[in-house]
Every structure is written in structure tokens, then in C-alpha cells.
């Protein structure tokens, strides 16, 4: 795990403060630690890869490198939406089976990079069984608006690894 997420993993509320990249999926606002983000690119043609889970949309050519794309709406079980000119791919670094790999996350739109102080982050609420709160490191409150802070390593890295393992 990278240094960034190691800092994030310490007790909730403490040390979670820092810069987050926020993006939207429908009406929900999410945030991920900025150090995980490599770059943001517009939507491009995606090559479908057979025998992979639904939420893996396929692969793209990122300047000569082939990287997988995760459709975040599909991953969270949300309704799919047609791509428009605001649709973005956020390329993040996640731990793969052999070292760090780059993965693109398909989101509705990217909002901004904002500072969220530790005291503005609350532990993830208990949703019971309906929602998997494991992927959430906390809830950021900025000007009365809620940002769901995601643990990228879990959302992308681990699911990628486990979903592929089940294919074998």
C-alpha cells in the first residue's frame, strides 16, 4: 500500500484531513485522496474485454499503455447513464497483484480539488446490510454538503484482484 493510504488508514477522523479530488455520480458527491490520482482524461473509445465482471468496462490506450476502466456506477449498482462531454476517466494508482497498476474510473463529472480538514470528516455511517460501507473511509462535510470519501485501494484494487481470481 502506498504511503498515502497508510496515512489514511490511521484512526478515523485523525489524520484524514488533506486534499481530495471530488467527483459526482448522479446526485452523490465523492472524494478520493489526491495523491492516488495520476491524471484525469476525457472519455475515449473503450475496448471491451470478455470474461470480466460487468463493472470492468474494458481497456483503453493511455499513451501506449493499456489500462482497465472501471465503470463506477455499475460497481456501486447505480443506474447507468449515457456518456456526455462531462464524463471523465480518473486514472488512479492502486496495488495490483504485481506492484502498482493504473486503473481508470469512469465518473459522471469531476468537480474540484478541495482541502478537507480532519475535524470535518466523520466516520462512515452504519448502513446495515444494504450498503457496503467497507469502501468508505469517512464522510466529509463541506458547507453543509456531504462528500463520500472512498478508499480507492479497496474499491478498485481489491475488487479487481478478487473478481479476476474468481474467473480462474
Amino acid at each position, binding site marked *: 500500500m502506498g504511503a498515502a493510504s497508510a496515512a489514511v488508514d490511521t484512526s478515523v477522523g485523525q489524520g484524514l484531513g488533506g486534499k481530495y479530488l471530488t467527483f459526482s455520480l448522479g446526485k452523490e458527491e465523492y472524494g478520493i485522496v489526491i495523491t492516488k490520482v495520476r491524471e484525469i482524461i476525457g472519455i475515449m473509445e473503450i*475496448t471491451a474485454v470478455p*470474461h470480466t465482471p460487468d463493472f470492468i468496462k*474494458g481497456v483503453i490506450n493511455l*499513451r*501506449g499503455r*493499456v489500462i*482497465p476502466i472501471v465503470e463506477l456506477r455499475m460497481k456501486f449498482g447505480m443506474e447507468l447513464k449515457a456518456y456526455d462531454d462531462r464524463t471523465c476517466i480518473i486514472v488512479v494508482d492502486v496495488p495490483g497483484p504485481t506492484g502498482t497498476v493504473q*486503473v481508470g474510473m469512469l465518473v459522471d463529472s469531476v468537480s474540484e480539488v478541495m482541502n478537507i480538514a480532519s475535524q470535518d470528516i466523520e466516520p462512515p455511517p452504519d448502513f446495515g446490510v444494504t450498503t457496503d460501507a467497507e469502501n468508505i473511509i469517512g464522510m466529509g462535510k463541506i458547507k453543509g454538503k456531504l462528500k463520500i470519501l472512498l478508499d480507492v485501494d479497496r474499491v478498485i484494487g481489491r475488487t479487481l484482484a478478487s473478481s*479476476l481470481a474468481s*474467473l480462474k
Partner: protein
Amino acid sequence: MADKSEALIAAQLDEMALKIMMVEPGDLSVVGELVVLVEGLQGLAGIDKYPALRKMGLALRAVIGQIVMTELPDSAENYERLGQCIGQMQEVYRKHGEDEAAEKSFALVISQIGYVPLSEDEGEVVKGATTEDPPPTANGPQSAAARHKSAKAVAKAAGASGGAPQGLRILESPPVEAMEFLQDPELLTGFVGETLEHLESIEVNVLELEDNPGDLEIVNKIFRPFHTIKGVAGFLNLKSVQRLAHSTENLLDDVRNGVHAMDAQVIDVVLKVGDFLKTMVENLKSVLTDGPEQYKNYDISDYVAWVETVQTGSSTGGGAESVAAAASVSAATPPDIIVPGRSSGEGVDGDPGFTPSTARGPGAPQKAAVGDSIKVDVEKLDGLVNAVGELVIMQTMVRSNPKIAVLSDPKLIKDFAQLARITSELQKTAMSMRMVPIRQTFQKMIRLVRDLSKKTGKEVNLVMEGEETEIDRNMVDSIYDPLVHMMRNSVDHGVQPPAEREKMGKPRSGTVNLRAYQKGGNMVIEIEDDGQGLNTEKIRRKAIERGLIQDSDKSSSYELNNLIFLPGFSTADQITDVSGRGVGMDVVKKAVEKLRGKVEAISEPGKGSLFVIRLPLTMAIIDGIIVRVGSERYIIPTTAIQESLKPRPENYNTVQGKGETLMVRGAVLPIIRLYKLFQVEPVYTDPCEAIVVVVEYEGRQRAIMVDELLGKQEVVIKNLGGLSDIPGVAGGTILGDGRVGLILDLAGIVQSHSGHGVVEEAGEA
């Protein structure tokens, strides 16, 4: 109906037979792998049907265990016998578990190694050479002290007879604090790397010396690396390495100064010491990677004693002594192996007829000049190659950008041409940096053929050509095993014994040609022998027996010969009965296909056989046909493609309404609808409107249905980021328009298709 578990047993036995061929004395890691295989055999489901096999497996496991524990000698003869034992097990399996002759000879051979069945004797092992030893128990743990004592006894015995010490002994390791050489791991890493290189050069030079025993310059070339190893080992406080290198250096110094003759014994000593040092250095390597607990304190005393005995032995008596040593060795080998002497008075005896030689152009220098070189981290190199690959693609994309493409400025066009030239030059150079000459792999064959000719009592000339030919460094390791296998085949099965050759009017010594060259974007390796050739008629009979071809089949002898690459075709019973090792050539074919290469056999009875391996120049680029299915494009590796055609309705049939087949040139091929397998929307669903590509994988043919063929192209293989092991997909590549295209993995496609319940061709086990 062939049971699946039986096939597993056969496969396991084949694996074991293959593994035992790879074992070299002192190389305990391979022995360890063998143990795993033997234990795996015991665990197989069908083994209960073969009580004899089970018993043999247990005995084998016990003997190997004793060799690992150094209770039995870790010597080439014993591995040879183990090989025979495995051969007998294969025999028993072939006879469906009932072959008393094979069981008896198994029992005989295994007792020659020193194995005594536990039930008959209370675990006491009687060893020929060291009867004065405290009798070690066959299964109980032995105290380190007792083992040490027995080691000393052997050392004494070895010193007395002047023979080579048997096996490697390990003393108790010193505490970690005492391992001073660990203080500077960087220095040690450098030492390990350099020493391994030195040892390799020593081996090559020693073998060259066998040809030119009087050449003092070569003696010097062997002396110097020993000196360097001694020096650095002393600096690092690696006492045992230092001492062994030192005593060998002394011996060589005597040879250099004419005090001692350069005889077969010295050559043997230097080779064996080289092997031992290699084992020790390899151990240091594992210490560096896996921690100091891996350290093995090898007992070098018997080796040092041996070296010193050879050194003090009078130079004039060297010949007599080496005969004595040879006699003591042959006493331990089965009597049916006769080592023929050489009639010429060259002074080098001991080696029957092995002469390595390299075909060189007239007037060419003995050794190619070695340019200055630097060592570069492989990762950095791969990074460079990737970056250059991206540059090339980017360059094309910029150029084909519609806005730029319409510009007709002559300067711009000229500059673009220049840019294209530079980038392709850069790519070529970057690729060539990953290429290494195949020389090192070839040179390992010298030793192999030398040992083999010694073992089989045949006289073999090894002629090598094109060692300069370059090969992707990632392929070097993977090509080694199949090459070893084929060289073994040529010497073991191909070349006949000297007497038989003379009867046929051939020269006494056989010739094995090992050639490498580049041709049409391929690297070609040829192994040619002037031996007896393949017995096409026997292969034909075997193929009919196995149901691979029909009785009425009118295949050409070329086609028949190449059936030996099919699984289940073991060389042992169809070509010769010399060796009991039935490892099929399918292992070779599989390894070569993994490298996306092809292998074929051309043979003329009585005249010899030629095996040709064709490999792509690099693993980074693949030659493929781009096909389209719906909106997706896929790349099929050209090596697997046999033909493509538009099916005609009269050739299309369904089986039980589900399985679809296509008749192509008399063969009935299952059809794979790629769009179904990959779940994409196709243009055509009627096979007669679409195109089928006939592919072959492991001897199985399939017709893959696609919408359209788009063309042939060389593509750079990329992995799919975090996605790997996707059935049917070998990787991706960037196509000309910048999109990703998937490269098909035919192994996966054939497999996942078989899993969909479509009828298999008859005859497959």
C-alpha cells in the same frame, strides 16, 4: 475409455522422467522438485489401481531422500540409475501395472544405488565404498556429528583412490554473526554475479582445452578466473570458496609451469570443482535473496583432498592414475556401458570421442572481439523499450491526425519523414539492446554432449554454427530445456554406437550439428544428426494403434514423422529401445509453442534427422492477423493459423443440433463462434456468410468464425494493466488508430470452447 486419472499418472511419470534428465550432481534444488513430483504421483487418485507403481514410488522417494540427506552419493551414476528406475515405472504403467520383468529390474537398479527395503533389513544401509562408516539409519534422522564423520571417511577414501568425491556434504552453519561476508551485501552481490560468469568461462575454456591440450594460453585463461575468485573470496572472508579456489589454482599453476601434465584427470578436477563452486555461489545468491538461514556450510575437505592428490600424483604417472580412476568409476557403472578408448595418441584419454568444434569462416579470428559493455538494470531497459514503443505509436498518430494530414507543406512532409526514420531507428536499437547472442546457451550444450557421449559410449562431434545469432533475452531461459531435450534425443536415439556406424559404412564418430540463424523475421535453430533417423514405419503403426490416423491414411513420411510431437507419443518405444526414458516430444513442442514458435522434424531413415525450431525474434512483438467481429477487432497469432476460408453450405454440419462442424480438406473441425464466446454483437450469424480461420493448437484444429479479415500486422504485445489470466485473451496491443485490440490466446479459446459442451474429435484422451 481412457480414464482421466490414468492420463494424470502418465503425465506425472513423464514429468518425472523429464526432471531426472535435468538433475546434475550437486544441484539439490532440482532433486527437491523431483521429490515433489514423486510425492505428487503417490497422491494421484488412480494410483491405487497400480499397487506395483505405488510400491516403486515409495522406494524411489526413500532413495531420493537418502541422496538429499547425503546418506547416498549425490553422483551422476546414481541419477542415471534413478532415470532407469523411472523408465521402469513408465514401463509398468504401460503394461497396465503388470510387468514383472520391469519390476525386477527396478529392484535391481535401485539396490545398486544403495536402497534396501525397510521390511527386509532393520534399516541398515550397506554402502559399497564406505563400509567402515557407522551404519546410518535409512529413515531416522542422523546426528550432524555422525554425518560429518562419514564425510571425513569418504574424504579419506577419496584421497586414497584419487577418485572424485561423491556428492556434497553440508556442515553445521556458523551463527549469523560469524558470517562476515554478509556485512557488505552489495559487494557480495557483485561477487556472486562475477563468479558465476567466471565459472562459465572456466567451463568453456576447459572444454576447449580438451581439444588443444597443449595450449598454455587456454590454461592461463582458466588460471586467471580462479585467481580472481580466490582473491575476492579472501577479501569477503568466504574461507571455503577461497581455499578450494586456491588449491585448484595451485594445481593449474603446476600445469602452467610444466610440473604437471594437463591430463584428463586435471580436466575432470577443474570441471567438478567448477560445479562445486557454482553450487556454493548459487547458495550465497539465495542467502542474499532469502536471508542468512539459507546458508549452507559446504564441506570442501574431500574436494581439497582430491585436488591435492591429483596435484601430488607424479606427472608421468598421471596417465596410469587416470586409468585407475576411470576403472574405479566404471566399476560403479553398470557393465553394459562400455567406454571405448581413443586410438589416437593425443594424450587426452578418458573422453571417448567427444570433440566440440565450431565452424568458422576461413581466417576468422578464434574468438570474436568483445566490445566494451556496461551492465544495465533489466527494468530500466524494459522501460526504455516501452517508452520508445509509445513514441512510435504517437508519431504515427500525430501524422495521421486529419488536420495535419491535409497540410502539404514540403518542409513539414520532409521533417515527418525524417522523424519517422529516427523513431524507427531508435526502436530498432532499443529492441536490439534486449537481444543477446545465443552463444551462452549453445556453450552449455558442449558440456551436455560431452557428458552424454561419455555416458552412452558413443563418439559424437558437436559442430556449432551461428552462435552470434541474437535472441530476446527473455527467451533464453525458456529455450534451454527444449534444446537440452532435443540434443539428448539426437545423441541418445539418433547417433548409433561406433561399431554399428562402422558396419553401415559411416565414420565412427557421429556428428551433431547445432545451428542458429535468422531468416525472414524468425530465429531458426536446427539440430541435425547423421544417425539412424526416425523409424517412419514404426511411427505409422503406433499412430494407427493410438487411433491418430486411419489404416488407409496416405500421409507423407514428413507428416508421419511430425506425429512424434503429439502428446502420448513417447520416443522410447517407437524409435529406439536404448533408453527407457519415455519423455515425449510433445514437451518440446509445448515449450516452443509457448514462445510462439514452431518445431518440425525432417528425417531420412539411416541418414539422420533434422529438427528445426522457428522462433520469433522477440517476445515483445507478435505477427498477427487482425480480424473483426462486430465492432471489435482481435489479433490471431499467425503461427497458429493454417488457413482462412468462406465455408460452403455442403461442408457445414451440426451434431445433435448443438455442436457445429465444418469439413475442411477431409477433416471435420468444430466451429467456434467467436462472438458467442466473447459476447459481442456480430454482423453475420450464418457461418456461410462469415469467414472462418482454421487454427491449430496442440495438434487440435478449430475453425474460428469471424466477420472479416482486416489484414496482417506486426503488433507490440502489452499486458492489460491489472487484468490478467482472462480465458482466451493473451494480451492487448495498440492498433493504428490508437484503440486497443485484444490478442487471442488459442489455448484458452480451445479450452473454454471445449467446456461449453461441444463434441470433441474422436481419438482424444
